[in-house]
């Protein structure tokens, strides 16, 4: 299909360009270069065909599925749930593809034959539609070509529309995120009341496979999960904030150029290491070390303690705080620094009494951005933190975080309308809103409190 469209578009381009060449040869007063004439025709041929192909392929599946369901005898489909419908459809598709495990019911076999027939009809129909649309477009576009025709403007308008569409993709992505999260979270809150979710203290996401199953009743109170996220993020910030700020202070004020040229790239390396590597490091080295240290001191330490995950996460976000604080400190004008030094202050006093207060909004913004990064971090906690939600602030216990629960609930082939899967989307919605809020606060702080220097 795509090759046909491409081929016909190239043919259209050649037709248009030769027409343009002919215009040049006969009249010599052409508005646009022949290439633009060719591009004009090619665009009119190719783009509508591509859009038609995309829409057709997107909806072909669901239309055929709907027709198949309606063609089945009522006995099979009456009163069946959506999951049962999906099961029937996939069974029909498997039989049609030749993957037969047990002897299928005769209705299914008949439906499979119908599927194959319709599939063939759909393919032929698609091809016919595409070719006819393209030929029509070719004819119409070619008819508009004339020596004084502003082909270049047409092409440029098409290009502008393409660029606007690309810009809207970013908005579409955000809208898509919000809509999909809201949709699934809405379905979840119909099964579990929001008050239970936001204020409940018990997180046990089980669903009963059969009625009356013991230990199958799920509790979806998310407070311990939120608490776990806060504990690990706090530990990470306690480690990263002083380290990052002091590093920035030293690099801005005290370090020679040589030291700066060596240390800054190495800190960038810290930022560039994939988080799964940090997670493995936490599991391999940090958690056993903490456990051994706990054993030496006689303190009860869990093997996947919050301290291990928080420590490694802190290492990961040091470069964020360091580079943002570095930028904030450098943005303070030299005149303030020089004035303070001229008054007889030591470098330390200049930094603590003049530069840091002036750069504080920027540094706060950096800290908030790093906090948002720590809250949203997944791989380190998945590998190093635990799975059981417990209401504890002891860093040596194992806690679980929002991101760990999202991953655990969604790994594997779970059905899409069980409370477990939907709970993951509800957690994802909360995570998205919290990080969005933190980012907005960070930007607002920086913008409102930043001193404007000449």
């Amino acid at each position, binding site marked *: 299909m795509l090759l046909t469209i491409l081929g016909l578009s190239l043919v259209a381009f050649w037709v248009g360009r030769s027409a343009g060449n002919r215009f040049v040869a006969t009249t010599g007063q052409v508005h646009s270069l022949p290439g633009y004439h060719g591009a004009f025709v090619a665009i009119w041929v190719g783009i509508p065909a591509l859009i038609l192909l995309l829409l057709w392929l*997107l909806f072909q599946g669901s239309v055929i599925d709907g027709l198949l369901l309606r063609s089945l005898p009522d006995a099979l489909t009456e009163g069946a749930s959506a999951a049962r419908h999906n099961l029937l459809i996939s069974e029909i598709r498997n039989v049609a593809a030749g993957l037969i495990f047990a002897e299928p019911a005769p209705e299914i076999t008949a439906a499979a034959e119908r599927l194959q027939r319709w599939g063939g009809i759909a393919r032929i129909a698609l091809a016919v539609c595409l070719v006819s649309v393209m030929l029509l477009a070719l004819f119409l576009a070619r008819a508009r070509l004339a020596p004084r025709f502003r082909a*270049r403007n047409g092409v*440029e308008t098409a290009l*502008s529309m393409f*660029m606007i569409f*690309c*810009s809207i*993709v*970013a*908005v579409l*992505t*955000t809208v898509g*995120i919000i809509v*999909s*999260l809201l*949709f699934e979270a809405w379905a979840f809150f119909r099964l579990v009341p929001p008050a239970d979710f936001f204020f409940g203290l018990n997180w046990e996401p089980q669903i009963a496979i059969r009625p009356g199953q013991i230990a199958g009743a799920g509790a979806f109170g998310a407070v311990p999960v939120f608490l776990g996220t806060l504990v690990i993020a706090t530990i990470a910030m306690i480690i990263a904030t002083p*380290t990052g700020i*002091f*590093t920035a202070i*030293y*690099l801005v004020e*005290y370090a020679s150029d040589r030291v700066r040229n060596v*240390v800054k790239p190495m*800190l960038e390396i*810290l930022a*560039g*290491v*994939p*988080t*799964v*590597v*940090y*997670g*493995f*490091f936490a*599991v*391999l080295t940090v958690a056993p070390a903490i456990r051994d240290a706990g054993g030496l001191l006689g303190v009860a330490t869990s093997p996947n303690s919050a301290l291990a995950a928080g420590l490694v996460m802190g*290492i990961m976000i*040091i470069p964020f705080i*360091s580079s943002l604080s570095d930028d904030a400190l450098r943005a303070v004008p030299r005149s303030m620094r020089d004035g303070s030094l001229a008054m007889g202050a030591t*470098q*330390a006093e200049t930094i603590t009494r003049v530069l840091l207060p002036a750069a504080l909004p920027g540094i706060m913004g950096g800290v908030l*951005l790093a906090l*948002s*990064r720590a809250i*949203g971090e*997944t*791989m380190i906690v998945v*590998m190093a933190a635990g799975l059981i939600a417990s209401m504890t602030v002891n860093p040596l216990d194992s806690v679980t975080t929002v*991101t760990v629960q999202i991953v655990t609930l*969604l*790994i594997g*082939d779970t059905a899409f309308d069980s409370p477990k899967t939907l709970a993951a*989307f509800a957690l*994802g919605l909360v*995570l*998205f809103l919290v*990080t*969005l809020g933190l980012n907005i606060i960070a*930007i607002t702080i920086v913008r409102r409190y930043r001193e404007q220097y000449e």
Partner: protein
Amino acid sequence: MTDATATPTPHYASSEAAAARRRKRYAADRRLRLYGITAIVFALGLLGILIATLVSSGYLAFTQTHVRVDFPISTENVDLEKPDKGNYRAVMREGISALLPEATSPAALRSITEMLTNNTQFFLRDAVLRDPEVIGGNLSLKVPVADPYDQLYKGLIDRDTPEDRRRLSDEEIARFDALVEQGRISRPFNAGLFLNADSRFPEIAGLAGAIVGSFYALLVCFLISFPIGIAAAIYLEEFAPKNRATDVIEVNINNLAAVPSIVFGLLGLAVFIQIFGLPRSAPLVGGMVLALMTLPTIIIVTRNAIKAVPPSIREAAYGVGASKHQVTMHHVLPLALPGILTGTIIGLAQALGETAPLLLIGMNAFITSPQGGLMDASTALPTQIFIWADSPERGFVSRTSAAILVLLGFLICMNAIAIFLRQRLERTW
């Protein structure tokens, strides 16, 4: 009226109290310097520990212990007409019983069979199919050794621990040492790490499927995000009017850059897999999700690169009669291209290391054959690391570190290429 010739004011700067104050202030200065150095040493020290841990636990995985066994390929086991249907288990048994002739009990033979990797008969079959001449003669094949013996040969099993707490009994170790004395054990470079697909057994597990899956996902990511990102950036920088709609788009892009990666995974799961019905674990879906994550990076980088082109270029192009599109496409964009390329490569390097969204859309499938297409279930390098990190076999610990080193190697290469391009192609105006 001040009396200029009155008692001279004391020099506060040279009094004892002043000197003490000055010493304290200098001490505070030195302390701050010390804190700074401590912080830097702490951060870089942890980086060093990270790298040292990875290298020390991973370098052993780049070699794999093999044992050379002579297998008699007799025609009664393997038919010349149908070599792929031969009884390779019998061949394997005959070869193994010839290794240590004094071990004849079934338990001993079973123990020696367990010394070789589980898939030995398939290696035999592949070797015979590659070279059918050996049917009727002897085939000397280097077979990978099973994981416990691999650990033993690399010195990772302490021979001094009591026997019941050890992986291998004294008898098994004695047999292995006998083979070492025969000169049959070797430890060549573990090419299987790069050529084999995933497996339950660490001695033959490899990264081929993961590398191919990551490559396809990055390819799709690049093909989607590069044109869209550049088009969006050009529009926002050159063509967009300064109104509310443009502000909304810009704010959206900046927000997207800070969204946690797992939310993109949720989006991919809800939209691409459920609504569009694309297959789970396919590199196509992984590439699309990665493209959405890389898009804000490419847009921001392209905007900065376009901003860096001086206005004189644009004015000159207008001056010779170019239209706005022609100025941008023919003059500004080619000059901004080096910066765009550098930023794109760095963005792709970040996408290569992303794990969480790929986990959610299922790119952690257990695939044992690497030949997959864009729509076949596959795995990616970071998710493969995640799977191996969870595996219980001891051999996977060093292999996970080795896989991490491979991933870091790719990242270093990509960043080096980006820096190299930036040095060569950058023009300062």
